[in-house]
Protein backbone atom coordinates (compact mmCIF):
# COMPACT_ATOMS: atom_id res chain seq x y z
CA UNK A 1 0.00 0.00 0.00
CA UNK A 2 2.80 2.36 0.90
CA UNK A 3 4.45 1.59 -2.41
CA UNK A 4 1.19 2.55 -4.10
CA UNK A 5 1.09 5.90 -2.24
CA UNK A 6 4.60 6.52 -3.34
CA UNK A 7 3.71 6.02 -6.97
CA UNK A 8 0.66 8.25 -6.68
CA UNK A 9 2.64 11.06 -5.06
CA UNK A 10 5.53 10.62 -7.46
CA UNK A 11 3.16 10.88 -10.40
CA UNK A 12 1.71 14.08 -8.93
CA UNK A 13 5.16 15.55 -8.47
CA UNK A 14 6.22 14.60 -11.99
CA UNK A 15 3.21 16.47 -13.31
CA UNK A 16 4.20 19.51 -11.28
CA UNK A 17 7.98 19.68 -11.53
CA UNK A 18 8.25 20.49 -15.26
CA UNK A 19 5.82 23.35 -14.82
CA UNK A 20 7.91 24.83 -12.03
CA UNK A 21 11.22 24.36 -13.79
CA UNK A 22 10.19 25.72 -17.14
CA UNK A 23 10.51 29.38 -16.27
CA UNK A 24 13.93 28.89 -14.72
CA UNK A 25 15.58 26.84 -17.40
CA UNK A 26 14.16 28.21 -20.59
CA UNK A 27 15.86 31.11 -22.18
CA UNK A 28 19.33 29.68 -22.17
CA UNK A 29 20.58 28.99 -25.63
CA UNK A 30 18.39 31.62 -27.21
CA UNK A 31 21.33 33.70 -28.28
CA UNK A 32 24.03 32.47 -30.57
CA UNK A 33 23.83 29.85 -33.22
CA UNK A 34 20.35 29.51 -34.63
CA UNK A 35 19.40 25.83 -34.85
CA UNK A 36 16.45 24.47 -36.77
CA UNK A 37 13.87 23.32 -34.22
CA UNK A 38 12.66 19.70 -34.38
CA UNK A 39 9.99 18.93 -36.92
CA UNK A 40 6.52 19.08 -35.38
CA UNK A 41 3.75 16.88 -36.78
CA UNK A 42 2.36 17.99 -40.10
CA UNK A 43 -0.99 19.72 -39.79
CA UNK A 44 -3.03 19.89 -42.92
CA UNK A 45 -4.64 23.23 -43.63
CA UNK A 46 -6.80 23.78 -46.67
CA UNK A 47 -5.00 25.64 -49.42
CA UNK A 48 -6.65 28.94 -50.27
CA UNK A 49 -7.78 29.18 -53.81
CA UNK A 50 -6.51 32.08 -55.83
CA UNK A 51 -9.86 33.81 -55.79
CA UNK A 52 -10.03 33.65 -51.99
CA UNK A 53 -7.73 36.60 -51.54
CA UNK A 54 -4.37 38.19 -52.16
CA UNK A 55 -1.02 36.68 -51.23
CA UNK A 56 2.13 38.30 -52.65
CA UNK A 57 4.16 36.04 -54.91
CA UNK A 58 7.92 36.35 -55.17
CA UNK A 59 10.70 34.88 -57.27
CA UNK A 60 14.09 33.81 -56.03
CA UNK A 61 16.48 36.67 -56.63
CA UNK A 62 13.78 39.32 -56.37
CA UNK A 63 14.71 42.37 -54.30
CA UNK A 64 12.96 45.45 -53.06
CA UNK A 65 13.75 48.31 -50.72
CA UNK A 66 11.78 49.76 -47.83
CA UNK A 67 12.58 53.20 -46.49
CA UNK A 68 11.72 53.50 -42.80
CA UNK A 69 11.57 56.58 -40.59
CA UNK A 70 11.37 56.31 -36.84
CA UNK A 71 9.92 58.82 -34.45
CA UNK A 72 12.05 59.59 -31.41
CA UNK A 73 9.51 59.18 -28.63
CA UNK A 74 12.05 60.24 -26.01
CA UNK A 75 12.32 63.72 -27.45
CA UNK A 76 9.81 66.54 -27.13
CA UNK A 77 7.89 67.44 -30.25
CA UNK A 78 7.52 65.49 -33.43
CA UNK A 79 11.10 64.41 -34.09
CA UNK A 80 11.73 61.84 -36.82
CA UNK A 81 15.09 60.15 -37.23
CA UNK A 82 16.99 60.04 -40.51
CA UNK A 83 15.44 57.20 -42.54
CA UNK A 84 17.03 53.80 -42.92
CA UNK A 85 16.76 51.90 -46.18
CA UNK A 86 16.22 48.17 -45.77
CA UNK A 87 16.91 45.76 -48.60
CA UNK A 88 14.71 42.66 -48.88
CA UNK A 89 16.27 39.89 -50.95
CA UNK A 90 14.55 36.58 -51.71
CA UNK A 91 17.59 34.35 -51.52
CA UNK A 92 16.03 30.90 -51.99
CA UNK A 93 13.12 28.63 -51.31
CA UNK A 94 13.52 25.90 -48.72
CA UNK A 95 11.34 23.36 -47.03
CA UNK A 96 10.73 24.04 -43.35
CA UNK A 97 8.42 21.69 -41.48
CA UNK A 98 7.57 20.17 -44.88
CA UNK A 99 6.33 23.54 -46.06
CA UNK A 100 7.84 25.39 -49.01
CA UNK A 101 9.21 28.68 -47.76
CA UNK A 102 10.77 31.77 -49.18
CA UNK A 103 14.05 32.62 -47.49
CA UNK A 104 14.24 36.41 -47.29
CA UNK A 105 17.38 38.21 -46.17
CA UNK A 106 16.71 41.70 -44.81
CA UNK A 107 19.62 44.04 -44.23
CA UNK A 108 20.26 47.79 -44.14
CA UNK A 109 21.74 49.35 -47.25
CA UNK A 110 24.19 51.16 -45.00
CA UNK A 111 26.52 48.50 -43.71
CA UNK A 112 27.38 50.36 -40.51
CA UNK A 113 24.06 49.34 -38.96
CA UNK A 114 24.54 45.80 -37.84
CA UNK A 115 20.92 44.67 -37.78
CA UNK A 116 19.58 42.01 -40.07
CA UNK A 117 16.82 39.42 -40.26
CA UNK A 118 16.37 36.14 -42.07
CA UNK A 119 12.73 35.26 -42.61
CA UNK A 120 11.36 31.88 -43.63
CA UNK A 121 7.86 32.56 -44.93
CA UNK A 122 5.57 29.93 -46.39
CA UNK A 123 5.13 30.31 -50.13
CA UNK A 124 1.42 29.65 -49.84
CA UNK A 125 0.44 32.39 -47.40
CA UNK A 126 3.65 34.06 -46.14
CA UNK A 127 3.16 32.50 -42.73
CA UNK A 128 6.33 32.93 -40.65
CA UNK A 129 7.93 29.53 -40.15
CA UNK A 130 11.24 30.72 -38.78
CA UNK A 131 12.72 34.13 -37.94
CA UNK A 132 16.35 34.86 -37.17
CA UNK A 133 17.45 38.29 -36.00
CA UNK A 134 20.99 39.68 -35.98
CA UNK A 135 21.74 42.56 -33.68
CA UNK A 136 24.75 44.58 -32.47
CA UNK A 137 26.33 44.61 -29.04
CA UNK A 138 29.30 46.54 -27.71
CA UNK A 139 31.47 43.51 -28.25
CA UNK A 140 30.31 42.20 -31.60
CA UNK A 141 27.25 40.97 -33.40
CA UNK A 142 24.90 38.28 -32.14
CA UNK A 143 22.07 36.30 -33.64
CA UNK A 144 18.89 35.05 -32.08
CA UNK A 145 16.08 32.83 -33.21
CA UNK A 146 12.78 34.56 -32.54
CA UNK A 147 10.33 32.01 -31.18
CA UNK A 148 7.50 31.52 -33.66
CA UNK A 149 4.82 28.85 -33.71
CA UNK A 150 4.47 28.05 -37.40
CA UNK A 151 1.08 26.43 -36.85
CA UNK A 152 -0.48 29.28 -34.92
CA UNK A 153 -1.84 31.93 -37.21
CA UNK A 154 -1.07 35.51 -36.15
CA UNK A 155 0.39 38.65 -37.75
CA UNK A 156 4.18 38.86 -37.74
CA UNK A 157 5.04 41.95 -35.72
CA UNK A 158 8.61 42.85 -34.89
CA UNK A 159 8.18 44.25 -31.40
CA UNK A 160 11.86 44.25 -30.59
CA UNK A 161 13.51 45.24 -33.83
CA UNK A 162 13.81 48.26 -36.09
CA UNK A 163 13.53 46.04 -39.14
CA UNK A 164 10.13 46.71 -40.73
CA UNK A 165 9.17 43.14 -41.53
CA UNK A 166 5.64 43.32 -40.08
CA UNK A 167 3.16 41.21 -42.01
CA UNK A 168 -0.57 40.66 -41.68
CA UNK A 169 -2.18 37.25 -41.91
CA UNK A 170 -2.69 36.37 -45.56
CA UNK A 171 -4.63 36.06 -47.77
CA UNK A 172 -6.04 39.56 -47.70
CA UNK A 173 -9.70 39.74 -48.59
CA UNK A 174 -12.32 42.38 -49.23
CA UNK A 175 -15.74 40.95 -48.64
CA UNK A 176 -18.00 41.54 -51.62
CA UNK A 177 -21.77 41.26 -51.33
CA UNK A 178 -23.85 40.50 -54.35
CA UNK A 179 -26.63 43.06 -54.53
CA UNK A 180 -30.07 42.49 -56.00
CA UNK A 181 -29.16 44.54 -59.05
CA UNK A 182 -26.30 42.21 -59.81
CA UNK A 183 -23.54 44.65 -58.86
CA UNK A 184 -21.15 43.97 -56.07
CA UNK A 185 -20.71 46.13 -53.01
CA UNK A 186 -18.08 46.04 -50.30
CA UNK A 187 -19.37 44.86 -46.96
CA UNK A 188 -18.34 46.53 -43.74
CA UNK A 189 -15.10 44.82 -42.77
CA UNK A 190 -15.21 42.42 -39.87
CA UNK A 191 -11.97 42.38 -37.89
CA UNK A 192 -10.27 39.06 -37.39
CA UNK A 193 -8.89 38.63 -33.90
CA UNK A 194 -5.65 36.75 -33.38
CA UNK A 195 -3.94 35.76 -30.17
CA UNK A 196 -0.41 37.09 -30.27
CA UNK A 197 1.60 34.79 -28.06
CA UNK A 198 5.17 35.75 -27.19
CA UNK A 199 7.10 33.07 -25.38
CA UNK A 200 10.05 34.39 -23.43
CA UNK A 201 12.14 32.41 -20.98
CA UNK A 202 9.31 30.03 -20.09
CA UNK A 203 6.72 32.75 -19.78
CA UNK A 204 3.95 33.22 -22.25
CA UNK A 205 2.72 36.77 -22.85
CA UNK A 206 -0.58 37.11 -24.65
CA UNK A 207 -2.03 40.07 -26.46
CA UNK A 208 -4.79 40.17 -28.99
CA UNK A 209 -4.36 41.75 -32.38
CA UNK A 210 -7.31 42.76 -34.51
CA UNK A 211 -6.71 42.62 -38.24
CA UNK A 212 -9.11 44.47 -40.50
CA UNK A 213 -8.80 44.14 -44.27
CA UNK A 214 -10.75 46.69 -46.24
CA UNK A 215 -10.84 48.88 -49.27
CA UNK A 216 -8.34 51.74 -48.84
CA UNK A 217 -9.71 54.96 -47.46
CA UNK A 218 -9.93 57.77 -49.98
CA UNK A 219 -7.14 59.70 -48.25
CA UNK A 220 -4.68 56.97 -49.27
CA UNK A 221 -5.54 57.03 -52.97
CA UNK A 222 -2.43 59.02 -53.87
CA UNK A 223 -0.17 56.46 -52.21
CA UNK A 224 -0.74 53.99 -55.03
CA UNK A 225 -0.06 56.28 -57.97
CA UNK A 226 3.75 55.98 -57.89
CA UNK A 227 3.60 52.23 -58.38
CA UNK A 228 1.41 51.99 -61.50
CA UNK A 229 0.41 48.43 -60.69
CA UNK A 230 -3.30 48.50 -61.35
CA UNK A 231 -4.14 45.49 -59.17
CA UNK A 232 -6.63 45.24 -56.36
CA UNK A 233 -5.78 47.37 -53.33
CA UNK A 234 -6.14 46.63 -49.64
CA UNK A 235 -5.92 48.60 -46.44
CA UNK A 236 -4.94 46.47 -43.46
CA UNK A 237 -5.23 47.74 -39.91
CA UNK A 238 -3.45 45.85 -37.13
CA UNK A 239 -4.53 46.96 -33.67
CA UNK A 240 -3.11 45.84 -30.33
CA UNK A 241 -6.12 45.39 -28.08
CA UNK A 242 -4.18 46.19 -24.90
CA UNK A 243 -2.44 49.40 -25.88
CA UNK A 244 -4.63 50.46 -28.79
CA UNK A 245 -1.49 50.89 -30.89
CA UNK A 246 -2.39 50.58 -34.54
CA UNK A 247 -0.46 50.28 -37.74
CA UNK A 248 -2.02 50.76 -41.14
CA UNK A 249 -0.63 48.97 -44.17
CA UNK A 250 -1.52 49.53 -47.80
CA UNK A 251 -1.11 46.58 -50.16
CA UNK A 252 -1.62 46.24 -53.87
CA UNK A 253 -1.60 43.16 -56.07
CA UNK A 254 1.61 43.00 -58.04
CA UNK A 255 3.59 44.70 -55.29
CA UNK A 256 6.07 42.56 -53.35
CA UNK A 257 5.43 44.27 -50.03
CA UNK A 258 3.12 46.82 -48.47
CA UNK A 259 3.66 50.06 -50.30
CA UNK A 260 3.09 51.95 -47.06
CA UNK A 261 3.01 51.21 -43.34
CA UNK A 262 2.29 53.83 -40.71
CA UNK A 263 2.05 53.79 -36.94
CA UNK A 264 2.59 56.34 -34.20
CA UNK A 265 6.36 55.84 -34.26
CA UNK A 266 7.15 54.40 -37.67
CA UNK A 267 6.60 55.31 -41.32
CA UNK A 268 7.66 52.84 -43.96
CA UNK A 269 7.29 53.06 -47.70
CA UNK A 270 8.21 50.72 -50.50
CA UNK A 271 10.71 52.50 -52.71
CA UNK A 272 9.32 52.43 -56.26
CA UNK A 273 11.75 50.55 -58.51
CA UNK A 274 12.77 53.47 -60.69
CA UNK A 275 11.74 56.37 -58.52
CA UNK A 276 14.25 59.06 -57.60
CA UNK A 277 15.60 58.97 -54.09
CA UNK A 278 13.48 61.07 -51.73
CA UNK A 279 15.76 61.17 -48.72
CA UNK A 280 16.39 64.51 -47.03
CA UNK A 281 19.76 66.07 -47.63
CA UNK A 282 22.30 64.63 -45.18
CA UNK A 283 24.01 67.02 -42.78
CA UNK A 284 27.47 67.92 -43.98
CA UNK A 285 29.81 67.12 -41.13
CA UNK A 286 32.62 65.14 -42.62
CA UNK A 287 33.92 63.07 -45.47
CA UNK A 288 32.08 59.84 -44.82
CA UNK A 289 28.32 59.33 -44.87
CA UNK A 290 26.83 58.43 -41.52
CA UNK A 291 24.44 55.67 -40.55
CA UNK A 292 21.19 55.80 -42.34
CA UNK A 293 22.44 57.98 -45.12
CA UNK A 294 23.03 56.90 -48.64
Amino acid at each position, binding site marked *: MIRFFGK*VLAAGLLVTIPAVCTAQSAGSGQVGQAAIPPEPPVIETPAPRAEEGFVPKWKVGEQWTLEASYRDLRAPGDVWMTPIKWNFHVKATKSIHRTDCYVVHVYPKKSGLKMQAILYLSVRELRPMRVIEI*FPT*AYGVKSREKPVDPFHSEPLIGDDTLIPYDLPVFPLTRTILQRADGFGAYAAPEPKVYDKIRKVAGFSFKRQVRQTDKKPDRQHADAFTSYRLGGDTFQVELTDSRTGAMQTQLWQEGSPWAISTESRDRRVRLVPPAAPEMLPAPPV*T*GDDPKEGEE
Partner: protein
Amino acid sequence: MINLKRLLAIALFALPLFAVAPVSAEDGSARGEIKPAPWSGDWWSRKRGFLVLGWKNHQPSPFARYDAYVQTRTGRNPGAHAWESNVNNTHYNPRAEDWEGHCNGWSAAAILAPEPRERKVRNGIAFETSDQKGILSELYMNTYCMFYGNRNWGNPGDDPQDIYPDEFHRLILEYIQGNKSAIVCDTTPDRQVWNYPLYKFESSWNSGWLDDKKLKVKTVVYYADDGVSVDFLGTKWFSTTYTYNLFVDSNGNITDGEWTGQSRDTHPDFVWVPTGDAPNPPNTVQENPNLDPKFVREIIQGPSSLDVRAGEPIPGPEAVMMEAGLNPADLF
Protein backbone atom coordinates in the same frame (compact mmCIF):
# COMPACT_ATOMS: atom_id res chain seq x y z
CA MET B 1 -3.85 0.62 8.66
CA ILE B 2 -6.08 3.50 9.68
CA ASN B 3 -3.14 5.83 9.23
CA LEU B 4 -2.54 4.43 5.79
CA LYS B 5 -6.16 5.05 4.81
CA ARG B 6 -5.91 8.64 6.02
CA LEU B 7 -2.70 9.08 4.07
CA LEU B 8 -4.37 7.69 0.94
CA ALA B 9 -7.29 10.07 1.37
CA ILE B 10 -4.95 13.03 1.79
CA ALA B 11 -2.94 11.99 -1.24
CA LEU B 12 -6.03 11.60 -3.43
CA PHE B 13 -7.28 14.99 -2.25
CA ALA B 14 -3.96 16.67 -2.88
CA LEU B 15 -3.26 15.16 -6.28
CA PRO B 16 -5.62 17.43 -8.24
CA LEU B 17 -3.92 20.43 -6.68
CA PHE B 18 -0.69 19.35 -8.33
CA ALA B 19 -2.33 18.40 -11.60
CA VAL B 20 -4.12 21.72 -12.22
CA ALA B 21 -1.06 23.85 -11.64
CA PRO B 22 -0.60 26.50 -14.39
CA VAL B 23 1.44 25.34 -17.30
CA SER B 24 4.27 27.70 -16.55
CA ALA B 25 5.37 30.62 -14.43
CA GLU B 26 4.17 29.26 -11.11
CA ASP B 27 6.28 29.83 -8.00
CA GLY B 28 9.80 30.25 -9.21
CA SER B 29 12.55 32.61 -10.05
CA ALA B 30 14.52 33.99 -12.96
CA ARG B 31 17.67 36.00 -13.28
CA GLY B 32 19.81 37.48 -15.98
CA GLU B 33 22.91 39.58 -16.40
CA ILE B 34 24.63 41.24 -19.33
CA LYS B 35 28.39 40.78 -19.20
CA PRO B 36 30.42 42.87 -19.34
CA ALA B 37 28.17 45.38 -17.65
CA PRO B 38 27.68 48.84 -19.17
CA TRP B 39 30.40 51.18 -17.91
CA SER B 40 29.87 54.02 -15.51
CA GLY B 41 30.70 57.55 -16.52
CA ASP B 42 29.80 61.13 -15.85
CA TRP B 43 26.42 62.33 -17.13
CA TRP B 44 27.90 65.60 -18.36
CA SER B 45 25.60 68.16 -16.78
CA ARG B 46 24.48 70.92 -19.11
CA LYS B 47 24.85 73.40 -16.30
CA ARG B 48 28.47 72.54 -15.41
CA GLY B 49 29.52 72.25 -19.05
CA PHE B 50 32.57 70.06 -18.49
CA LEU B 51 32.59 69.05 -22.16
CA VAL B 52 33.42 72.61 -23.25
CA LEU B 53 34.89 74.18 -20.11
CA GLY B 54 36.95 71.28 -18.88
CA TRP B 55 37.41 70.88 -15.16
CA LYS B 56 40.04 71.31 -12.47
CA ASN B 57 43.45 70.14 -13.70
CA HIS B 58 41.94 69.12 -17.00
CA GLN B 59 42.52 71.62 -19.77
CA PRO B 60 41.84 71.82 -22.64
CA SER B 61 38.32 70.45 -22.55
CA PRO B 62 37.31 67.24 -24.34
CA PHE B 63 35.82 69.11 -27.30
CA ALA B 64 38.76 71.48 -27.61
CA ARG B 65 40.98 68.40 -27.91
CA TYR B 66 38.63 66.88 -30.48
CA ASP B 67 38.69 70.01 -32.62
CA ALA B 68 42.47 70.17 -32.39
CA TYR B 69 42.82 66.57 -33.55
CA VAL B 70 40.42 66.95 -36.48
CA GLN B 71 42.27 70.09 -37.51
CA THR B 72 45.49 68.07 -37.74
CA ARG B 73 43.67 65.60 -39.97
CA THR B 74 41.74 67.92 -42.25
CA GLY B 75 43.37 71.30 -41.92
CA ARG B 76 40.19 72.95 -40.64
CA ASN B 77 38.51 73.33 -37.28
CA PRO B 78 35.27 71.29 -37.32
CA GLY B 79 33.60 73.58 -34.78
CA ALA B 80 32.42 70.94 -32.35
CA HIS B 81 33.48 73.03 -29.36
CA ALA B 82 31.85 76.18 -30.76
CA TRP B 83 28.56 74.40 -31.38
CA GLU B 84 28.52 72.78 -27.95
CA SER B 85 29.34 76.09 -26.25
CA ASN B 86 26.46 77.93 -27.90
CA VAL B 87 23.72 78.13 -25.28
CA ASN B 88 21.13 78.29 -28.03
CA ASN B 89 21.94 74.66 -28.76
CA THR B 90 21.06 73.84 -25.11
CA HIS B 91 23.89 71.36 -24.58
CA TYR B 92 25.71 73.82 -22.37
CA ASN B 93 23.65 76.31 -20.46
CA PRO B 94 24.60 77.76 -17.05
CA ARG B 95 20.88 78.32 -16.45
CA ALA B 96 19.84 74.75 -17.24
CA GLU B 97 17.98 72.77 -14.62
CA ASP B 98 20.17 70.79 -12.26
CA TRP B 99 19.03 67.42 -13.63
CA GLU B 100 19.56 68.19 -17.31
CA GLY B 101 22.50 66.52 -18.94
CA HIS B 102 23.75 63.86 -21.32
CA CYS B 103 22.47 60.82 -19.41
CA ASN B 104 20.81 59.39 -22.51
CA GLY B 105 24.04 59.73 -24.50
CA TRP B 106 26.06 58.14 -21.70
CA SER B 107 23.52 55.30 -21.34
CA ALA B 108 23.61 54.46 -25.04
CA ALA B 109 27.40 54.75 -25.23
CA ALA B 110 27.84 52.53 -22.18
CA ILE B 111 25.74 49.85 -23.90
CA LEU B 112 26.95 50.17 -27.49
CA ALA B 113 30.64 51.01 -27.10
CA PRO B 114 33.35 49.22 -25.14
CA GLU B 115 34.64 51.20 -22.19
CA PRO B 116 37.62 53.44 -22.97
CA ARG B 117 40.18 52.14 -20.50
CA GLU B 118 43.43 53.71 -21.64
CA ARG B 119 44.78 57.07 -22.65
CA LYS B 120 44.97 57.60 -26.40
CA VAL B 121 47.42 59.97 -28.09
CA ARG B 122 46.55 61.06 -31.61
CA ASN B 123 48.90 63.30 -33.52
CA GLY B 124 50.36 64.35 -30.21
CA ILE B 125 47.01 65.23 -28.64
CA ALA B 126 46.18 63.27 -25.50
CA PHE B 127 42.69 61.95 -24.89
CA GLU B 128 42.24 60.69 -21.35
CA THR B 129 39.55 58.10 -20.70
CA SER B 130 37.36 60.93 -19.39
CA ASP B 131 37.74 62.82 -22.69
CA GLN B 132 36.85 59.70 -24.62
CA LYS B 133 33.80 58.98 -22.46
CA GLY B 134 32.62 62.56 -22.83
CA ILE B 135 32.96 62.50 -26.60
CA LEU B 136 31.19 59.12 -26.81
CA SER B 137 28.38 60.41 -24.61
CA GLU B 138 27.80 63.24 -27.06
CA LEU B 139 28.13 61.01 -30.13
CA TYR B 140 25.37 58.71 -28.85
CA MET B 141 22.96 61.48 -27.88
CA ASN B 142 20.98 60.49 -30.91
CA THR B 143 20.53 56.78 -31.52
CA TYR B 144 18.21 54.47 -33.32
CA CYS B 145 16.38 52.63 -30.59
CA MET B 146 13.44 50.48 -29.68
CA PHE B 147 11.06 52.37 -27.42
CA TYR B 148 8.56 50.90 -24.96
CA GLY B 149 5.86 52.64 -22.95
CA ASN B 150 4.94 56.32 -23.18
CA ARG B 151 6.97 59.18 -21.81
CA ASN B 152 5.20 61.07 -19.04
CA TRP B 153 5.33 64.75 -20.01
CA GLY B 154 3.25 65.79 -17.02
CA ASN B 155 0.29 66.45 -19.30
CA PRO B 156 -3.31 65.60 -18.47
CA GLY B 157 -4.03 62.09 -19.67
CA ASP B 158 -0.48 60.81 -19.24
CA ASP B 159 -0.84 57.43 -17.54
CA PRO B 160 1.38 57.38 -14.44
CA GLN B 161 1.21 53.56 -14.33
CA ASP B 162 2.82 53.20 -17.75
CA ILE B 163 5.11 51.39 -18.51
CA TYR B 164 2.98 48.43 -17.42
CA PRO B 165 4.72 45.74 -15.42
CA ASP B 166 3.79 42.88 -17.76
CA GLU B 167 5.64 44.69 -20.53
CA PHE B 168 8.54 45.53 -18.20
CA HIS B 169 8.79 41.88 -17.10
CA ARG B 170 8.81 40.71 -20.71
CA LEU B 171 11.57 43.18 -21.56
CA ILE B 172 13.94 42.09 -18.81
CA LEU B 173 13.42 38.47 -19.82
CA GLU B 174 13.75 39.22 -23.52
CA TYR B 175 16.82 41.42 -23.35
CA ILE B 176 18.64 40.62 -20.11
CA GLN B 177 17.94 36.95 -19.54
CA GLY B 178 18.09 36.43 -23.30
CA ASN B 179 21.61 37.89 -23.13
CA LYS B 180 20.75 40.34 -25.87
CA SER B 181 21.42 43.82 -24.52
CA ALA B 182 21.20 46.01 -21.48
CA ILE B 183 18.12 48.23 -21.59
CA VAL B 184 17.78 51.87 -20.58
CA CYS B 185 15.10 52.89 -18.09
CA ASP B 186 13.87 56.33 -17.20
CA THR B 187 13.77 55.48 -13.52
CA THR B 188 11.32 58.18 -12.48
CA PRO B 189 7.68 57.98 -13.58
CA ASP B 190 7.20 61.76 -13.47
CA ARG B 191 8.27 64.30 -16.11
CA GLN B 192 11.93 64.32 -15.11
CA VAL B 193 14.10 61.87 -16.99
CA TRP B 194 16.84 59.89 -15.31
CA ASN B 195 18.22 57.36 -17.74
CA TYR B 196 20.21 54.42 -16.43
CA PRO B 197 21.25 51.19 -18.14
CA LEU B 198 19.62 48.16 -16.50
CA TYR B 199 21.92 45.18 -16.95
CA LYS B 200 21.04 42.64 -14.27
CA PHE B 201 17.92 41.39 -12.51
CA GLU B 202 16.82 38.78 -9.99
CA SER B 203 13.13 38.01 -10.02
CA SER B 204 10.98 35.70 -7.88
CA TRP B 205 7.26 35.13 -7.75
CA ASN B 206 4.50 33.16 -6.13
CA SER B 207 0.85 32.78 -6.90
CA GLY B 208 -0.54 32.52 -3.39
CA TRP B 209 -3.03 29.97 -2.13
CA LEU B 210 -6.27 31.70 -2.98
CA ASP B 211 -5.59 33.35 -6.31
CA ASP B 212 -3.65 31.31 -8.81
CA LYS B 213 -4.51 33.80 -11.57
CA LYS B 214 -2.19 36.38 -10.07
CA LEU B 215 1.57 36.11 -9.80
CA LYS B 216 3.06 38.30 -7.09
CA VAL B 217 6.47 39.28 -8.36
CA LYS B 218 9.48 40.85 -6.68
CA THR B 219 12.26 41.92 -9.01
CA VAL B 220 15.58 43.38 -7.97
CA VAL B 221 17.19 45.28 -10.81
CA TYR B 222 20.75 46.58 -11.07
CA TYR B 223 21.52 49.83 -12.83
CA ALA B 224 24.90 51.15 -13.95
CA ASP B 225 25.39 54.47 -12.19
CA ASP B 226 26.56 57.81 -13.55
CA GLY B 227 27.22 59.32 -10.15
CA VAL B 228 30.96 58.90 -10.51
CA SER B 229 34.00 61.03 -11.10
CA VAL B 230 34.88 61.76 -14.72
CA ASP B 231 37.90 59.46 -14.65
CA PHE B 232 36.12 56.52 -13.02
CA LEU B 233 36.72 53.12 -14.65
CA GLY B 234 34.48 50.08 -14.39
CA THR B 235 30.88 49.80 -13.29
CA LYS B 236 29.44 51.36 -10.19
CA TRP B 237 25.91 50.09 -9.68
CA PHE B 238 22.86 50.65 -7.59
CA SER B 239 19.88 48.36 -7.16
CA THR B 240 16.16 48.92 -6.86
CA THR B 241 13.37 46.52 -5.99
CA TYR B 242 10.11 46.58 -7.93
CA THR B 243 6.97 44.69 -6.93
CA TYR B 244 4.08 43.95 -9.21
CA ASN B 245 1.30 41.52 -9.97
CA LEU B 246 1.03 39.70 -13.25
CA PHE B 247 -2.37 38.35 -14.25
CA VAL B 248 -2.53 34.92 -15.81
CA ASP B 249 -5.35 33.45 -17.89
CA SER B 250 -6.55 29.86 -17.72
CA ASN B 251 -3.89 28.78 -20.23
CA GLY B 252 -1.03 30.22 -18.22
CA ASN B 253 -0.59 33.28 -20.46
CA ILE B 254 0.27 36.61 -18.87
CA THR B 255 -2.29 39.10 -20.08
CA ASP B 256 -2.02 42.12 -17.77
CA GLY B 257 -0.22 43.54 -14.77
CA GLU B 258 -0.25 46.16 -12.01
CA TRP B 259 2.50 47.80 -9.99
CA THR B 260 2.13 47.25 -6.25
CA GLY B 261 3.37 48.84 -3.03
CA GLN B 262 5.92 51.60 -3.41
CA SER B 263 6.50 50.58 -7.01
CA ARG B 264 3.23 52.24 -7.93
CA ASP B 265 5.14 55.52 -7.54
CA THR B 266 8.71 54.49 -8.28
CA HIS B 267 8.49 52.23 -11.33
CA PRO B 268 10.24 53.12 -14.60
CA ASP B 269 8.48 55.61 -16.87
CA PHE B 270 9.67 54.19 -20.17
CA VAL B 271 12.26 51.82 -21.54
CA TRP B 272 14.43 52.12 -24.63
CA VAL B 273 17.09 49.96 -26.17
CA PRO B 274 19.74 51.65 -28.33
CA THR B 275 20.69 49.79 -31.49
CA GLY B 276 23.09 52.12 -33.26
CA ASP B 277 24.35 55.65 -33.67
CA ALA B 278 22.13 57.90 -35.78
CA PRO B 279 22.77 61.21 -37.46
CA ASN B 280 21.17 64.33 -36.09
CA PRO B 281 17.61 64.71 -37.37
CA PRO B 282 17.32 67.79 -39.58
CA ASN B 283 16.60 71.05 -37.77
CA THR B 284 17.16 69.63 -34.29
CA VAL B 285 19.84 70.15 -31.67
CA GLN B 286 19.74 66.72 -30.10
CA GLU B 287 23.33 65.97 -31.01
CA ASN B 288 26.40 67.97 -31.89
CA PRO B 289 26.40 67.90 -35.72
CA ASN B 290 30.09 68.79 -35.86
CA LEU B 291 31.13 65.56 -34.20
CA ASP B 292 32.08 63.09 -36.89
CA PRO B 293 31.82 59.38 -36.03
CA LYS B 294 34.79 58.67 -38.28
CA PHE B 295 37.13 60.85 -36.24
CA VAL B 296 35.65 59.65 -32.97
CA ARG B 297 36.45 56.09 -34.02
CA GLU B 298 39.99 57.13 -34.89
CA ILE B 299 40.38 58.48 -31.38
CA ILE B 300 38.67 55.73 -29.42
CA GLN B 301 39.80 52.66 -31.33
CA GLY B 302 43.21 51.37 -32.16
CA PRO B 303 46.57 51.59 -30.46
CA SER B 304 47.39 53.90 -27.59
CA SER B 305 49.50 56.16 -29.78
CA LEU B 306 49.07 56.99 -33.43
CA ASP B 307 50.40 59.69 -35.69
CA VAL B 308 48.39 60.35 -38.85
CA ARG B 309 49.39 63.63 -40.42
CA ALA B 310 47.08 66.13 -42.01
CA GLY B 311 45.69 65.16 -45.36
CA GLU B 312 46.67 61.54 -45.03
CA PRO B 313 43.52 59.48 -45.30
CA ILE B 314 43.50 56.24 -43.35
CA PRO B 315 42.98 53.56 -45.99
CA GLY B 316 40.09 51.17 -45.51
CA PRO B 317 41.98 47.94 -44.86
CA GLU B 318 44.19 49.62 -42.30
CA ALA B 319 41.20 51.14 -40.56
CA VAL B 320 39.94 47.61 -40.08
CA MET B 321 43.30 46.56 -38.69
CA MET B 322 43.06 49.42 -36.22
CA GLU B 323 39.60 48.29 -35.20
CA ALA B 324 41.19 44.92 -34.45
CA GLY B 325 43.67 46.64 -32.14
CA LEU B 326 46.63 46.43 -34.52
CA ASN B 327 48.89 49.32 -35.42
CA PRO B 328 49.67 49.34 -39.16
CA ALA B 329 52.79 51.34 -38.50
CA ASP B 330 54.13 48.54 -36.31
CA LEU B 331 53.48 45.86 -38.88
CA PHE B 332 54.47 47.30 -42.26
